[in-house]
């Protein structure tokens, strides 16, 4: 176990180094002079030279790369061109709403995805199974921002229960905060729910077919006991593997969902930064989300190790 963990830690570090390299390359990809493009987005006084100096854009590639890594290690990801604050500050300010949104969406995904998948697997080939799987595949096929727009009209206007957008901090009003996150969470979770349902069902079916389950059933144990004790725990392994992907998809989805619902989070920060060509923020947001993903995966692998006894003997 210890050796396994050490190995994973080293891989994680290598991946993080590559991740930061890729993030750094974003600004390098801009055709022409990135300083000119960014100066366009700066405050009224144009300062191409100042920006070039600030970002060291006239330096050779390897010097710029070193500056980037050095800054990163000190927790400095540069200054936002348009927001008048450091990139890290800009991101941290916007994390709470995205985290709240992602957590709600994740909970919805887990609850509905797992229940739907398990139910479909247990009632395999019945109408319940087909209905659930049809809904799941539709959920995976529909663009989330489109559903979001439709939900705004349906729920906010026709029925008047929930706000049509905007975000209320929990400090201001807990009930307002909750209500402002309901619709976006659902729109965001739709894709993941469908995905999780499909994966859970397939894993569940696979596990249910296996000998030890049939043995347990043959032994006369009630079905639900079998399901809970044996099948479920084994299903959790591939499901946990997928958690990282779900997290990644949630963040991806947040870019459009936060735009549609006017939520001031990381996703919307990304969406507005690409329009204003605020490259420092774009790079910083990419780096931070990727780093979070890598660390979550590391965590998942550690959990995985607990669930799967085979790893212990490596």
């Amino acid at each position, binding site marked *: 176990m210890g050796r396994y963990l050490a190995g994973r830690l080293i891989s994680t570090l290598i991946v993080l180094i*590559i991740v930061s390299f890729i993030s750094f390359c974003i600004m390098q990809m801009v055709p022409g002079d990135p300083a000119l493009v960014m100066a366009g987005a700066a405050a009224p006084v144009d300062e191409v030279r100042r920006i070039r100096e600030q970002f060291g854009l006239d330096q050779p590639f390897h010097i710029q790369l070193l500056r980037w890594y050095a800054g990163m290690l000190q927790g400095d990801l540069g200054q936002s061109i348009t927001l008048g604050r450091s990139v890290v500050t800009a991101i941290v300010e916007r994390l709470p709403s995205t985290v709240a949104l992602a957590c709600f969406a994740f909970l919805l995904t887990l609850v509905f995805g797992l229940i739907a998948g398990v139910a479909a697997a247990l009632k395999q080939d019945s109408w319940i199974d087909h209905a659930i799987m049809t809904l799941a595949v539709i959920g995976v096929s529909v663009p989330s921002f*489109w559903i979001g727009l439709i939900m705004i009209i349906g729920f906010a206007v026709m029925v008047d229960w929930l706000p049509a957008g905007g975000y209320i901090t929990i400090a201001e009003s807990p009930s307002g905060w909750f209500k402002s996150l309901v619709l976006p969470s659902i729109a965001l979770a739709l894709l993941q729910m469908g995905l999780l349902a499909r994966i859970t069902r397939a894993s569940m079916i696979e596990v249910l077919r296996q000998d030890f389950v049939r043995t347990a059933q043959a032994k006369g144990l009630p079905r639900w006991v079998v399901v809970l004790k044996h099948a479920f725990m084994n299903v959790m392994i591939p499901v946990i593997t997928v958690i990282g992907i779900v997290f990644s998809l949630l963040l*991806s989805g947040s870019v459009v969902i936060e735009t549609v619902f006017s939520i001031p989070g990381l996703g919307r920060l990304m969406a507005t930064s690409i329009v204003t060509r605020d490259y420092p923020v*774009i790079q910083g947001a990419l780096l931070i989300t990727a780093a979070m993903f890598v660390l979550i995966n590391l965590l998942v692998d550690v959990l995985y190790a607990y669930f799967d006894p085979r790893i212990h003997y490596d």
Partner: protein
Amino acid sequence: MPTLTPAFTTTDALKRARWRNSAWIRLLRHRMAVIGFVFCLAALLMAVFADALATHHPERTRIRDAFQAPSPAHVLGADHLGRDIWSRVVYGSRISIGIGVATVVLTGVIGAAFGLISGYFRQLDDPLMRVMDALMAFPGVMLAVAITAALGPSAVNVVIALTAVYVPRTARITRASVLVVREMDYVQAARALGAGHTRMILRHILPNSLGPLVVQLTFVFAYAVLSEAALSFLGMGPPPPTPTWGNIISDGRDYLREAPWICLYPGLAISVTVLGLNLLGDGLRDVLDPRMKVTQG
């Protein structure tokens, strides 16, 4: 004589029932896959025969017709500039399908190449996979959006961005098959007979790794259509006045309540196309490897 007969009979009956069930599933899945194929074909035909199917020029504006509800003059209604929605959706399919095809081809070739090299050459496996892991760490839309922001909004750059996002996933799938195929007897035999690396890869390993690759690429197509729509919606797709399903929805979002047809039909087009691709992918997976776990959407 051991009295095992009753038990065997029960098991036989169980087995037969299972077989009938699984054949039944096969048929149903098959039916779903056929439906999926039909949807995909419809989208493809729409893209190819856009000129014949459209009723108006997709970019022709006519303020007098602005916000017209669906009518004989405009089958699916008109947008805020009086442009025909049906024609725009029809031509929009060219972009969505076109970008999808280009992405799939590029992703397939590059991803398979990486996967083959990685699976076949042990020494290159680790470093290559670390790079793939790093690329996969970025949420897909975020990476695509950052790349198009850097390169500039255009159809070509969207393809580049989406390829960068999906190559790692494809490489992984290919690599997994390669690892399995590589150990098979006939492959070992070919190596024993002195086949060179290129020959090994191209003639023996690749053909047998194609199954999962094809399934994966179908899903990549589906994701590409969805991602392109999101990118266009955010303003990072091909610039106006080119119609894409994503930017038609984006144009129409100010008038959602009063002129819902502007957003409704392109959204349906996306959903149906992606649904078709997903169903087709499911069916292909069943045919090519019914035992394969669902590790991707």
